């Protein structure tokens, strides 16, 4: 047992800190530290800055343009990134379709799509869910019929985050409706500028536009955009669920949220003192800090076993569940401890404290985190079946 970072890792940590302190643009930092969402321009600007440093696709091996970091380095980077007030990166390119492409695609496809992801120039979105295929994803109906050297795609995707920003969408489509439902699914890459694609906005309860419906009406997609073989879509989707779990718990950002809460309590006037004077508020902070510690050390175990080349232990399976629950709890605590200050919605100037004012939108946004990426109930079904043998 050794629960310390090595000297080399501490050295790496310093390098990351110093690069971040020079390279996070002030406008991006300010918005992130206020808990605000970035628009497309700022989000992409940050991703391109990381891309030019070679630090965007942190999980990728060197041969595809990743930094070749191990899990500990990725974890350290993530913590320092959050500490520096820099936003997380959009997962669809670097964490999802990228690993699918370098694991399942042919050389031509790798050459064509990987560089745009590594540089942050191409923005991707994920076409999985459909109106009648949410948790029951394998029931999806969007069809792709082969005609010559093209697929003709028809159907509808929903809950498509950043579809209105994206250049490309990776889709699960049905290429065969005569076989068992999981076996008829294929993985298709589609250019969002193709005629027949229509994106309609869905406004979520945080008052922002992240989500969309995407309609496909006789959309012609070249067959060379199929990843792997026809019918491999479900295998690829399952691969993504097990790929890279070392940052899935969101430890770095949750840690930062708790720091933000402490800062807000200390800097918000209340009566003759500050909100920090309230012992119940501080007790609540303590509880969140300790819950975070349990998550953090569970995450360390996953990071360490990844780096030691061990198969992931059972401890990693609950990371998404506990991580998202904690994100919601921290966010709820900020809103509740802000009290009336958390009612502010679109003020430009602080009412009492901007950190509390902005917290409510994030609280609303984070109701989604126990739903997206497979609801926590689906996660539990999977653990019950795979690990508990039920």
């Amino acid at each position, binding site marked *: 047992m050794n629960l310390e970072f090595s000297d080399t890792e501490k050295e790496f940590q310093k390098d990351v800190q110093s690069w971040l302190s020079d390279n996070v643009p002030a406008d991006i930092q300010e918005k992130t530290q206020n808990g605000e969402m970035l628009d497309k321009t700022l989000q992409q600007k940050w991703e391109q800055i990381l891309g030019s440093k070679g630090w965007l696709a942190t999980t990728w091996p060197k041969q595809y343009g990743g930094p070749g970091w191990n899990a500990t380095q990725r974890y350290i980077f993530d913590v320092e990134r959050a500490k520096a007030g820099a936003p997380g990166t959009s997962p669809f390119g670097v964490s999802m379709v990228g690993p699918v492409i370098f694991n399942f695609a042919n050389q031509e496809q790798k050459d064509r799509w990987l560089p745009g992801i590594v540089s942050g120039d191409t923005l991707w979105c994920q076409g999985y869910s459909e109106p009648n295929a949410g948790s029951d994803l394998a029931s999806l109906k969007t069809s792709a019929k082969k005609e010559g050297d093209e697929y003709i795609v028809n159907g509808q995707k929903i809950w498509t985050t950043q579809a209105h920003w994206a250049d490309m969408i990776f889709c699960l489509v049905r290429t065969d409706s005569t076989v068992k439902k999981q076996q008829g699914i294929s993985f298709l890459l589609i250019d969002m500028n193709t005629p027949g694609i229509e994106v309609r906005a869905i406004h979520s309860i945080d008052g922002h536009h992240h989500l969309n419906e995407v309609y496909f009406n006789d959309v012609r997609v070249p067959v060379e955009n199929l990843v792997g073989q026809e019918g491999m879509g479900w295998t690829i989707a399952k691969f993504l669920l097990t790929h890279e779990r070392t940052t899935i718990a969101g430890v770095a950002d949750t840690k930062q949220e708790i720091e933000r809460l402490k800062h807000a309590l200390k800097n918000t006037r209340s009566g003759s003192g500050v909100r920090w004077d309230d012992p119940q508020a501080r007790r609540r902070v303590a509880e969140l800090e300790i819950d975070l510690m349990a998550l953090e050390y569970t995450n360390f*175990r996953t990071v360490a076993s990844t780096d030691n080349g061990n198969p992931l232990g059972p401890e990693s*399976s609950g990371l998404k569940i506990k991580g998202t629950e904690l994100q919601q709890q921290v966010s709820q605590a900020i809103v509740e401890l802000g009290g009336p200050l958390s009612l502010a919605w679109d003020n430009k100037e602080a009412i009492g404290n901007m950190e509390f004012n902005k917290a409510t939108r994030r609280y609303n946004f984070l109701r989604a985190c126990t739903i997206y990426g497979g609801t926590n109930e689906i996660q539990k079904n999977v653990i*019950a079946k795979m690990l508990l043998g039920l």
Partner: protein
Amino acid sequence: MDFNLSSEQKMLGDSAKRYLSQNYSFDIYLDQIGSNMQINPERWQKMLDLGWFGLPFSEENGGFSGSLFDVSLIARALGEALSIDPYVDNIVLPGKLLEFISSPTADAWLKKLIDGERTFSAAIYDVDSHYDINHTNVILEDGVVNGQKSFVSNVGEVDYLICYAREASDEQPILFIVAVEEEGVEYKDCRVLNGSRSGVVTFNNLELTNDKILCVGSDATAAAQRAIDYVTVLECAAMIGAATAAYEKTLEYAKIRKQFGTHIGSFQVIQHYLVDMFVELQQAESMLFMATDKGAVKDVAESQAAISSCKAYLCKSVVAIAQQAIQIHGGIGVTEELDIGHYFRFITHLSLIHGDRDFHMSRYMKRTGLEDKICAVNMA
């Protein structure tokens, strides 16, 4: 970082489990809680032979210099086996007290403990001081001790008590040692929640010679606090061990218990309860690993913050696992005849000794700056 056990640690953990599977059982446990005898001579000798008595103590004192993590493997195995053999209460706690006092006299007593020549118990708490050891009404005045200590483990079966008291003249804390048989020492004992026995010891004009005073002043308080901190980690390990067993037994039960024509583990609500227990157990275990490591650092604020955060977390999560184990068992879970209810009591007991959740939450807050007052507010 590396969370792997060394080969020695694996052997230690395996041998503890093997010893317990061969020498302990639920039936032995039931006999034990029904009797007045907690220190079973045969098993006591075997634990001595296994080297457990020396493991927590330094080689200079005749021990084996095991790490806190090493010793936690034993506590964990004991918890998993539902063993109430008082290894932690009557070996580690008094032994650590003696070791932390660190004087030739204390070292000589410690040697007798490690060799199994004499048995000891720690008398640290007063009934009216909650978990605060600093407060005591056991007073030494003109060479005579009067007052009362409570929660003294298995007092009726040990040779000596190591007692935390204070001097009348200047309020200085002291630690002294006294034979239970000594005139002026009286005790009553009763069964407590985990089935072991705990005593109330009354000192009635006990004459104390100077050679029995082991330590005076802030050193006495520090020794007592460090010893309690040390065993608090071991209690956490025992809680994890017990919760692991309770969880595994419950999972097995869900696979065989049939209702509505099928095993109850096929119901989604039961599956999700079991997943919650499983996930929570992993988190709690991570906290234990953290506390066995950070709990042993020199910086007192850091080690106490680590230990208190672990105990506070486990008092919530492991207790919830034990409660859920009963719920999933249904009626049979609340009976004396099944071990599940006993695991629940065992875990609850541990959650209440040497600081409960509230105590450790408060201490965590004190050690991490969450109790600091904010003087200057920088308002924009």
